[in-house]
């Protein structure tokens, strides 16, 4: 039930793999240009702690808590944020 911290923190590859309530730490962004800047702006910086806080009815835009604000992302964009 209570597995160790490291395992819980590291099993996911991208932000999109997080389920509601799970937390991860951003490693890098796999995108360029305006999307990259936008993501950096709202707080998806290397080392930032991100928590998935919910899904939309279709499960596609998911909501992530990062640096105190809730940001909605689509799957295409979420998959470009890689976690530690």
């Amino acid at each position, binding site marked *: 039930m209570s597995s160790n911290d490291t395992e819980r923190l590291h099993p996911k590859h991208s932000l999109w793999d997080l389920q509601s*309530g799970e937390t991860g730490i951003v490693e890098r962004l796999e995108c360029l240009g305006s999307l990259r800047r936008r993501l950096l702006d709202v707080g998806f910086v290397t080392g930032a702690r991100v928590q998935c806080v919910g899904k939309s009815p279709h499960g596609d835009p998911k909501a992530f808590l990062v640096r105190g604000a809730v940001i909605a*992302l689509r799957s295409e964009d979420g998959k470009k944020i890689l976690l530690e």
Partner: protein
Amino acid sequence: MGLSGNSTGFGVWKANLPTKGNRKRKKPQKIQTVEKRIAIAGNPNVGKSTLFNELTGLHQHTGNWTGKTISNAWGYYRGNASSYVFVDIPGTYSLLAHSAEEAVARNFLCFGKIDACMVVCDATCLERGLSLLLQIMEIVPKVMLCVNLMDEAERKHIYVELNALREKLEIPVIGITARKRDCRELVLQGLEELLGENESSASKPENSQSVSSTPTGSDTAVITYAPAIEKMMASLLPLVRPIVNHRLPARWFCLQLLLGDTSLLEETGHYLAENKSLSSQTLKEIKHMSDSLLQAAGFTSETLADSIVFSLADRAAQICQDAVSRNRSNNSLKDTAICGHETCPLRNTCSCGQSSSLRKNTVPYGHSASPCGNASLSSRAIPPEQRIDRLLTSRLLGYPLMALLLLVIFWLTIVGANYPSQLLTSLFAWVESRLARGAEALGLAPWLRELLVSGIFRTVAWIVSVMLPPMAIFFPLFSLLEDVGYLPRIAYNLDYCFKKCRSCGKQALTMAMGFGCNAAGVMGCRIIDSPRERLIAILTNSFVPCNGRFPTLIAMISLFFIGGAGGALELGSSLLAACCLTCFILLGILMTFLFSGLLSATALRGLPSSFVLELPPFRKPRVGQVLLRSLIDRTLFVLSRAVLAALPAGLCIWLMANLHLGKESLLNLCAGFLDPLARPLGLDGTILMAFLLGLPANEIVLPLVFMAYSGAGSLQELAGFETMKEILITHGWDWTTAVSVCLFSLMHWPCATTLLTIHKETRSVKWTLLSILAPLSAGILCCMLFHAVAGRQP
């Protein structure tokens, strides 16, 4: 220009005069008077506009969502000691701008010749606001930090140490709650402090550039970047300094050179070349040098930006670590319990406002204090707003709740509007009879009497009595939703559908603005980054009925579907009416999706771009203020526009009804001419003519229909709903005609104001024409289809 919401705000009209510094560029010396120019900057949705309203008393419309302010708004404050010009600039996450409204913000900060900048931060996510603050501090020498939403932070047990912030940042810092009235004094005090100290130390009356004369400005480093970047900047600085000539901070300019944002560099080039002779050659040389430096250091523009943003975020986190504390004694679970375990009820817990200072000392999953499955503990640990959010966006209830909310709003509108409408109608009927008698007593000529009373007064009376009650109920309700913060949730819920149509979820926000006014909705499309998706949103905006068309829909439905005789509305029939209205709106939304998809597949081919939308926390609406604002801003404005547009149109109809060509009146001739076109749609020539004449304002379509019918001599006095229905029925209406009118009203050409706005936004006749064709073709198709199915049955 826009009509409702923020676009009717006085500020926007002013803002349109000096945008982008064009005016300032021409005569830089003239502006410098006693008034100090203060920019209000900050992240989106931190309450800049609220603070701005509070400071200036201007009624700029505010809402709880990102992108509400799309251009600079100007307001004045004149106090005893000093006068200020406050400029509310669009919210931005950073100054590395990418969307149109963010570029507006950045350019204003760089070239707007401001005396000081007030950066507004949200106390519940201070860290992110601080990144922006640091960037602004690099450009603007005099910066004040306003930590807003202190009350909300307190509720979330987040405590901001203002003194610690002040020490760290070395700028004035104030803590405010902009929604309460106490903030003005605090802000003014802060500004005194900020501007006062400067005047003693460095006063150069001749120089309009405050940037130049301050010690804090150009060269002191606000943040230290990575060593490699600092090294590059050090080698660029000696070259840059003579160019910027104290007009822009040299360090900041170096950074921009390295980043190579071409649009900004161009702007800067223009700005610097204005007074001093700066050849583009020099700029090019330096640019070349910075590029080679970048290459030598092994940076690409992406890694450079990353590094810069990382330094900013890191510094912001450091500051926050010292300045933000959380009271854990109250509810320790709330802060620490985040469980990824599937069956644990605590996994839903949100640690709102968690800052990175907590990153190190929080153990996210070791919630040993709260054993899994302890329901009472966990329910206490989930913040109520998080639970509401989950409900509103849940798989099962997300869509039904949206429809239900729409239904409830419509139902309240229909039920609530019924009585005042009847009352107003009988009141105006009484006034009209008096007027008629008065005119007779004055001995006016019969034709003039007719013109004044039947032509003008009746139109105005009709519009007011039919439009005012529903609008006065619908808009405040809608504004309340906006103020609470529900609109971004709609965008969040609907984004999947928009993605399927290869467009952007933010289109839902522009649609919501379209409910108020399509012209405002079209302007609001600026919040969409991708030009292709923005164009789709603009072209499909008029599928959402604006307030001009709502009364038509409501009147049709209440006349023909609920038979509101005698004013007594039964619950069942009013619900039915609300359902009908909701169905029409849903049809409009469906059409939006359909045409968005169609456009994406044909004229505007392309892949969906990204969707990054902030979902702000729910906020308690300020009911009184919202009611007042929506009444003044939207209702009365739209009503007066309707009346103004109706007067000439009413005159036109009256003249057409009374001018005769041969035996037939002009009206009948025109109606007869249009009749063959209108019949297949289930309409008649008069209705189609009313729609055509209603181009300046859709509000007047139904009044025009009545006037055309009554102008033919069947209505002597303005009367209640029952009589109206009788008139319509004697002119061959039945319920299918009513449905056709609703359909056509929902989907025909946008009004003239909207068309002008579309032309202004797209700068293209082609797209403007398409914006007429798209809804018109849909309307014709729907009407013909409906007529073919329903019209055949006797």
